[in-house]
């Protein structure tokens, strides 16, 4: 308990950056690229650049708000600007979004582990282990998750870099042509639909008061944002270079097909070299997701020690996640609809908050 008191529950730039990279960056290694290739074709890398452009404004406004209301997090800001009742409804929607994201992602990750690596282990067991470890982390709090994220960040980045280099060497560059993929207008439309990919950045606002100060927070957000976009661009090009658009759009999980396909020198079955890093970063990701759901739940129902909600939320996640019959299909479909629905929430909320703050005259103080 002593160490917790000395840091006063705050995380620094390193931990925040590690959290951002492991939370958003690991999406290149799940089913997200699959949904990208469906809409953008081989121009998925242009799509992610456009998504970056679209989300630039909401993220910029978010950082402005965090800077303005020092020592407050997004929960306080929403309640302050929109009042008790609208604020409650908004936070409730955001909480539901977080819980659903958690359920669909954990179901999909369980499916990845089950179909690609542990064929004979029952899904329930994989799910229990995944959620139990994540719940353990979430219960410990954000500093704990942040520092474990920082500890493994180097190794995750190193493994990803090795994979990228090998992919670019073994791949065929001409596969990225025709350069515009499914066509100009399709890409623009798709980027709007997929912009919820970066919704996590909005949720980082909820831990703003856990970061040392608002300058550190904003710095972390921008550095994290740039690295995430860059790694997405490189990975999306890399998958196409290895399998061509025609092959890659058939894969559910391109990252895992990639690490099964590549060979490093005389080493042939290299996937088990990379799988542990992916697994650990997934644990961190779900710890953080569970932590966020608990945090929001606590804020909604005025629970001071919200950590104690974590086990209940974890159990809920697992029970709902185990319900659908074949997770990949039902969850993928649901997730795509869900992501399209939340896109406007993510894009508009910061703008609305900023306008309200402006109207209230908070910027002048």
């Amino acid at each position, binding site marked *: 308990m002593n160490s917790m008191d000395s840091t006063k529950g705050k995380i620094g730039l390193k931990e925040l950056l590690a959290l951002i990279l492991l939370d958003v960056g690991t999406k290149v290694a799940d089913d997200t690229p699959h949904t990208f290739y469906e809409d953008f*074709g*081989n121009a998925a890398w242009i799509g992610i650049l456009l998504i970056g452009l679209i989300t630039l404004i909401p993220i910029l406004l978010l950082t402005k708000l965090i800077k303005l209301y020092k020592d407050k997090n997004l929960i306080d800001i929403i309640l302050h600007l929109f009042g008790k009742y609208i604020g409650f409804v908004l936070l409730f929607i955001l909480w539901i979004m977080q819980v659903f994201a958690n359920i669909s992602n954990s179901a999909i990750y369980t499916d990845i582990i089950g*179909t*690609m*690596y*542990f*064929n*004979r*282990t*029952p899904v329930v*067991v*994989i799910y229990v*282990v995944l959620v139990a470890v994540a719940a353990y982390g979430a219960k410990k709090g954000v500093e704990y998750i942040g520092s474990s994220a920082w500890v493994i960040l180097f190794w995750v980045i190193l493994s990803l870099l090795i994979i990228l280099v090998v992919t670019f060497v073994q791949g*065929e560059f*001409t*596969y990225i*042509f*025709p*350069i*515009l*993929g*499914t*066509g*100009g207008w399709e890409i623009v439309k798709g980027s709007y639909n997929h912009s919820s990919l970066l919704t996590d950045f909005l949720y980082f606002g909820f831990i703003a008061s856990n970061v040392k100060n608002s300058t550190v927070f904003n710095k972390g957000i921008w550095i994290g944002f740039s690295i995430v976009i860059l790694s997405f661009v490189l990975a999306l090009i890399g998958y196409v270079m290895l*399998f*061509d*658009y*025609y*092959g890659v759009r*058939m894969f559910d999980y391109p990252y895992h*097909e990639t690490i*099964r*396909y590549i*060979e490093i020198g005389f080493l*042939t*079955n290299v996937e088990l070299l990379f799988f542990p890093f992916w697994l650990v970063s997934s644990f961190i990701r779900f710890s953080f997701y569970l932590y966020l759901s608990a945090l929001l739940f606590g804020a909604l129902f005025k629970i001071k020690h919200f950590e104690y909600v974590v086990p209940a939320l974890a159990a809920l996640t697992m029970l709902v996640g185990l319900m659908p019959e074949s997770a990949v299909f039902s969850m993928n479909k649901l997730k795509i609809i869900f992501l399209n629905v939340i896109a406007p929430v993510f894009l508009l909320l910061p703008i609305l908050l900023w306008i309200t703050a402006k109207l209230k005259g908070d910027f002048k103080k």
Partner: protein
Amino acid sequence: MRKFQHLSPILFFIFIIPLLSGCWDQTSIEERAYVVAIGLDKSKSGNENQIQVTYLLGNPEFSKKEAMTNEPPMEMITFDTNDVTVGKNKANTVIAKEISFNLLSVILVSEEFAKDKNFIRWMYDTTKEREIKRKTPVIVTKEETTKFFKQNRPKLESRIHKYYDYILKYGSEAGMIPNSESNIGKYYRTTQADASLYLAIYGTSEKSDYSRSNEEDSFMAGEMKVGEETNKVQFMGSAVFKEGKMIGKLTGEETRATVLLNDTLEMGAILATYKDPFDERYRITAKLLKKEKTDVKMDLKNPLPKINVSIPIYLDILTQHSMVDYANDSQKRERLKQSIEEEISDTLDALIKKTQEEFKGEPFGWATLARKQFLTIKEFENYDWMKTYPEIDVNIEVKVNIGNFGNQSDVPNLEEMRD
């Protein structure tokens, strides 16, 4: 409460230990039977929905140098089944261990089965089977794969998985077989893209008669006469697949020419013979290298589409039986260059004619290069490369650079010597 604080980590570790064993996926090496090669044939039962699967199981104990066993290096089983995956269980009626594809080196397909219109259905089964890697090479055999397996008894490399690794590696370095292109992953890609032809390795254990012509390598597997006591199996040439179905063959020479044209195929230093312009009776042996990429210029928007290909080739002359002194005579060298350029471009022209007229498609990787000319996938798909290719005017230009003339560049003057 204090007491329990020390207890809880211990309890935690006790809980964690069972997880380390890999849960239900725990397997021990001794309990597995490793399939080194899978053979696919048409079923003889006449049932269209069944195939005949052959598993070639390698004996891992055989690789151990210190403790040689009396067990044979491999075991083979053949049976009719619905697909490769369900066969795993069926095989357990005779094999005492759990069947594993983790060390699978090759997939063999008989020519008859590859030409079947339903062949593609069984090929796609392998996408579902987690243990089969996309890097696994595909070999088409002239005869039934069971016969091929039986005849294949390599004399000096009895570890069968090593044998396949090595022969494919060195065969493709010689350019006789299209190895780097011919794995299952590339089969799927080419079939799905539906714009070019896929090449698989061609091999056989059957001898066939062949009237020897002047060229060194214009034969298929089985046609080369190899004397003395050796393995009956030969790998040479390639099987051509269009839309997932085998439609024809390329000889060793044509496969080499394809490798020369296609930059995506790995090419080592190829040894080949060319006719000597100063003495028709003799042929020159040369080491052929490609140091630069093939330059392909496309003009597709034209109503008469054109492709101009320029191939830079580096040649080292290794032997010349005519004993002409090329090393010191630049005019003679020029003549030799021209003659070789003509010979290579004649081969290439003939190959392109064959692909345009017989196959109506190309295995040269030009489809992906053509994609550069289009902005969107739709535009490219509307252009329908496979349909357009036979009408395209292809011009080949070969540029030969002669390097050195072997370790000793000078040759004695025969007439003076015999004088």
